[in-house]
């Protein structure tokens, strides 16, 4: 019973980090119809910046702020200087389908190489803002630590802020409108191109948080966020790629499921488990758990 509970709690903490990554992917997908594989790179570069700040000032939260700002700037920059150029050269022919996907891959490689050139390949660590030792109740110590709790709380706060932005502000309304029906939104006077760039910025900032939170209990390297990208993508697919709520729910489910595999079966099956979840969801419910019988768009 105790093991069950602690597995659940740790799963919740892992899943909440996946939630941020999958939310970032979904935000970009809704507005641009591109799965942004460069998100892992953007988050990584932001985390390196957060790492520099938090190591020099020894304040984790300042590092986090800088990571969010860097992520947002980077996200907006990628859309403004890169995606717009790509779509201006709107391609036809055999490569038309694959061009945007391949472009984001190229960007991931580019950011990875730049980070490698600046910081090198060795593992960096960020000093955790809270204890990584498990809580102790009387005699027993459980693996769930103050850091895990802090991660859950931080993600929860960020989700609430995002929910307020999307549901209660004009910006949120135009973000939703231009994702749902770009042409009609434009006719209604929304500057959709600018709105899209803002969406990319929000996604970038959220990705930066995910990178910082993962790194607080792990190491940082030019490759350390690849798995986060994959699990974020799987979570987004569980949620149907369209729905923000779905992606968060999907991420929590995935995080808890994978932690159960880790604790009850073993490390070797964690990835296979994640991949199996992806294949099963794609075959059985390709529109995701939040689908309401609407056909998947392109």
């Amino acid at each position: 019973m105790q093991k069950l509970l602690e597995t659940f709690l740790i799963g919740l903490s892992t899943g909440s980090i996946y939630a941020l990554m999958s939310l970032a992917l979904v935000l970009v997908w809704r507005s641009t119809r591109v799965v942004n594989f460069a998100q892992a790179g953007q988050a990584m570069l932001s985390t390196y910046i957060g790492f520099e700040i938090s190591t020099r000032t020894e304040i984790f939260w300042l590092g986090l702020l800088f990571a969010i700002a860097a992520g947002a700037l980077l996200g907006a920059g990628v859309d403004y200087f890169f995606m717009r150029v790509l779509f201006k050269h709107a391609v036809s022919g055999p490569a038309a389908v694959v061009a945007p996907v391949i472009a984001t891959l190229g960007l991931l490689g580019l950011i990875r190489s730049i980070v490698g050139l600046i910081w090198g390949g060795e593992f960096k660590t960020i000093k955790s803002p809270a204890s990584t030792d498990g809580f102790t109740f009387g005699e027993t110590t459980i693996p769930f630590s103050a850091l895990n709790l802090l991660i859950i709380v931080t993600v929860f706060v960020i989700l609430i802020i995002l929910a307020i932005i999307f549901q209660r502000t004009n910006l949120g309304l135009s973000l939703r409108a231009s994702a749902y029906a770009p042409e009609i939104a434009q006719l209604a006077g929304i500057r959709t191109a600018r709105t899209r760039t803002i969406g990319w910025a929000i996604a970038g900032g959220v990705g930066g948080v995910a990178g910082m939170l993962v790194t607080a209990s792990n190491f940082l390297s030019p490759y350390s966020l690849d798995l986060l990208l994959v699990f974020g993508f799987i979570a987004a697919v569980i949620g149907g790629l369209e729905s923000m709520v779905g992606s968060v729910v999907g991420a929590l489910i995935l995080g808890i499921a994978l932690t159960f595999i880790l604790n009850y079966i073993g490390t070797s099956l964690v990835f296979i488990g994640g991949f199996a979840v992806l294949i099963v969801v794609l075959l059985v419910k390709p529109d995701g758990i939040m689908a309401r019988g609407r056909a998947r768009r392109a």
Partner: protein
Amino acid sequence: MRKKLALFILLGWVLLLIGDRVDELRVYQGAQIAMYTIALASIVLLTGYSGQVSLGNGAMMAVGGYSAALTLNNLGSPVWFAFVMAVVVSALFGAFLGAAAARLSGPYLAGTTLALAVGLPEIANQFAFLGGVPGILFDVGFPPARFGEEFTQYKWFFWIASFIALLALFITSNILQSRYGRTWRAIRSHSLAAELSGVNSGRMKILAFTISSALAGLAGAVMAMTISLVAPGAYTLSLSFALVTGAVLAGVSSLPGVVFGALILVAIPEVADVLATRWGGDENLNNYLPGLIVSVLLILSVIFTPNGPGEKLKSRHHKKA
């Protein structure tokens, strides 16, 4: 058909002559070029013809490499049989994945295959019979004694790799010119229209995925031969990226282009090495400059000549006419 066969035999003969006249390093790079040629052909067939994006061909190469090595080491079979097993096992694996992939469009397929590329090497790390991080040996043996003392190991690799590459290209080019190639192009340009003309697009996509995986697996086995080893570190995400880059540079739907793409992929580390040494030989520079060059090339080509360098020339020609 007969003409093409003659052309391929002529090509093989020219390769043999070249192999005798250049130094050891170039011979080794020749084997690498042959390996990349097969791998890029698998992407051209899949992406350029059937219109499916796979970022996981590096993982398929791993499947081929591991099946070849396990066959050779555990069954004590002849070397050619190891290569055949690499093709068979990766084709089966591809058919299984293809069955899932055929129902997926663009982003779903790309993401799923990306997950595969990230995860498969991790899986190899976890299981003892796959040798963990150090991997397992794959030794095709010394060249036959009758070739003489002069005949080096690398030249033997080059011979085997070139022979396999020519054979694979010959078969692939015939497949692409057959009914199947035409059907794939029809599906890619308009899948609904193709279905209305009686094409079972799901089955054709699975077939493309299977053949492409078989080719990638073969390339993986050839790669294992040239480094005498299969290890998770050889089949990284970067390999999958490099393959996609090579295919885009080659023009995704041009089979002869793959030789050009393969040349570039082998040349990039060389060029990067020269540049890194000239710019101070810093360790980070050595490690990350090749990746930087690959990504910049990929981005530039996807923005400016997404259908390959041939496209611009062709369209200019059309304008004049």
